[in-house]
C-alpha cells in the first residue's frame, strides 16, 4: 500500500477550491464582475473577481514608485522654533538617528516596513505586470514564482499607512513645542499609502489561474 502511494505522482484537481481558513472544498464558480465568493461554513473569502481593477494596477504601481521616490528624498516634517532654530527630518534620516542611538533592531524594523518592503513590493509587481503579462516573456520560472510569492508574503509587513498615522500623532505632539510644517514627503506618503492600497487589490494568484482575466501562462 505504501509502495503504491509512493509511485503515484501528485495530480492537479481542476475546478475545485478549498477554503484557506477551514479547508471546506467548493466547486469553483464563474464569478461575475466584482463578485466575491465566501465560504459557507466559516465566512472567509474564497475568491474575488478583480477584472474591474486589473487595468489600473500597472499605472497605479508606476505612480506609486514616483511617490515613493518623493516620499523618501524630501523631509516629512519641518520644525521652526521662535529662537530661529530649525529642524527637519526625512524618513531615512530618522532611521539613521535611531541606529545612532543604538536601536539597531528598531531601526531595521522601520527601515524594512516603510522603505525596503514597499519598494520590493512595487518592483516585484511592476515586473510581474510587464514582462510576463504585457510582453509574454516569462523568463526564468523561479524569478516569476518568487516575485509572486514575495508580494503575498510581504503584504502584512508593508506599513506605509500605519506610518502615516504615526506622522499625524507626532505632528500633534510637536505642535505644543514649536511650529510644525508638513513637508513635501508627507503628502507623497499620503498618496503612496492610497496607491498601495489600490495596487494591493492585485492578487498574484491571477497569474496562475487562467480564469481571472489574464491569459494562461504558457507551458
Amino acid at each position: 500500500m505504501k509502495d503504491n502511494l509512493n509511485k503515484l505522482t501528485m495530480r492537479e484537481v481542476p475546478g475545485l477550491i478549498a477554503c484557506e481558513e477551514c479547508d471546506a472544498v467548493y466547486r469553483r464558480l464563474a464569478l461575475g464582475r466584482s463578485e466575491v465568493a465566501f465560504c459557507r461554513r466559516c465566512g472567509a473569502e474564497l475568491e474575488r473577481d478583480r477584472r474591474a481593477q486589473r487595468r489600473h494596477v500597472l499605472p497605479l504601481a508606476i505612480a506609486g514608485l514616483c511617490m515613493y521616490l518623493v516620499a523618501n528624498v524630501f523631509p516629512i516634517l519641518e520644525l521652526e522654533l521662535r529662537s530661529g532654530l530649525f529642524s527637519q527630518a526625512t524618513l531615512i534620516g530618522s532611521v539613521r538617528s535611531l541606529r545612532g542611538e543604538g536601536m539597531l533592531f528598531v531601526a531595521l524594523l522601520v527601515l524594512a516596513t516603510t522603505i525596503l518592503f514597499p519598494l520590493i513590493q512595487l518592483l516585484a509587481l511592476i515586473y510581474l505586470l510587464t514582462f510576463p503579462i504585457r510582453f509574454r516573456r516569462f523568463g526564468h520560472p523561479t524569478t516569476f514564482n518568487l516575485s509572486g510569492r514575495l508580494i503575498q508574503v510581504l503584504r502584512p509587513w508593508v506599513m506605509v499607512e500605519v506610518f502615516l498615522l504615526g506622522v499625524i500623532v507626532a505632528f500633534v505632539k510637536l505642535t505644543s513645542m514649536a511650529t510644525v510644517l508638513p513637508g513635501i514627503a508627507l503628502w507623497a506618503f499620503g498618496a503612496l499609502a492610497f496607491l498601495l492600497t489600490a495596487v494591493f487589490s492585485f492578487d498574484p494568484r491571477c497569474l496562475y489561474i487562467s480564469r481571472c482575466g489574464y491569459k494562461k501562462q504558457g507551458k
Partner: protein
Amino acid sequence: MSVKTAAKLGMVSCPHCATLWEDVKAHDRCGRCGAGLHLRKPDSLRRTWALVIAAYIMYVPANILPVMITVPFLGKEQQDTIMSGIIYFWNSGSWGLALIVFTASFLVPLFKLAVLTQLLIAVQDHSKRHLLLRAKLYRVIAVIGRWSMLDVFVVTLMTGLIQIKGFATVHPGEGIAAFAAVVVLTMLASISFDPRLMWDVTEHDPGRSHESR
C-alpha cells in the same frame, strides 16, 4: 455536518496559488507556483505557542520601560512610557488622538495575545464550541496587528526631528525595542497559526495526524 474538506478528500491546497492537488507526498512542491505543499501549516501549534509566550515576556518591559526620553536644554529630562504618552494626549485635550493611540498601542496587543492564547487552548482541547466566533476573531487579529507599530513610528520621527542643540534632544528608550518585539512576535504568531486546525475537530478523526504535517 457533511462538509467535505480537502484533507478528508485527500487533497492539499497550495497556500500561494490555491490550486488543489491530489496524492501529495512530503516535500512536494506546487506544480504551478512552486510553493511548498503542507496539509496544515507545519508545526503550527508549537510555533504559535513559542511566539505567543515570547510576546507575553516582552510585553512586560514594553509597558514598564520608557519608550522615549526627552532631554530639554534647560530643566529636567522626561521619560515617557506607552501609557504616559496616552495620558499626556488625554490631559492636553486631544481625546481623539488619545483614543487612537490607546487602541493601537494598548488594546490591540493585549487583545491579540488574549485571542491567540484562547484559540490555541481551544484547538488543544478539541473544542467544538463557538467555532464561527473563533474564526471571526482570528480574521480580526490578522488584520489589526500591524497598527500597533504606530508608537514605534512616532518615536522614530521624534528622534529624527528633535536633535536640536540649544533646545531639546529626544532619545528612544529600551521600551520601544521591547514594544516593537511584541508587535513583530504577535504578527508572526497569527501568521503561523493555522485556522484550519480549529475546524478539524468537526471531522470524525479529530485532526491528530494533521497537527504537525
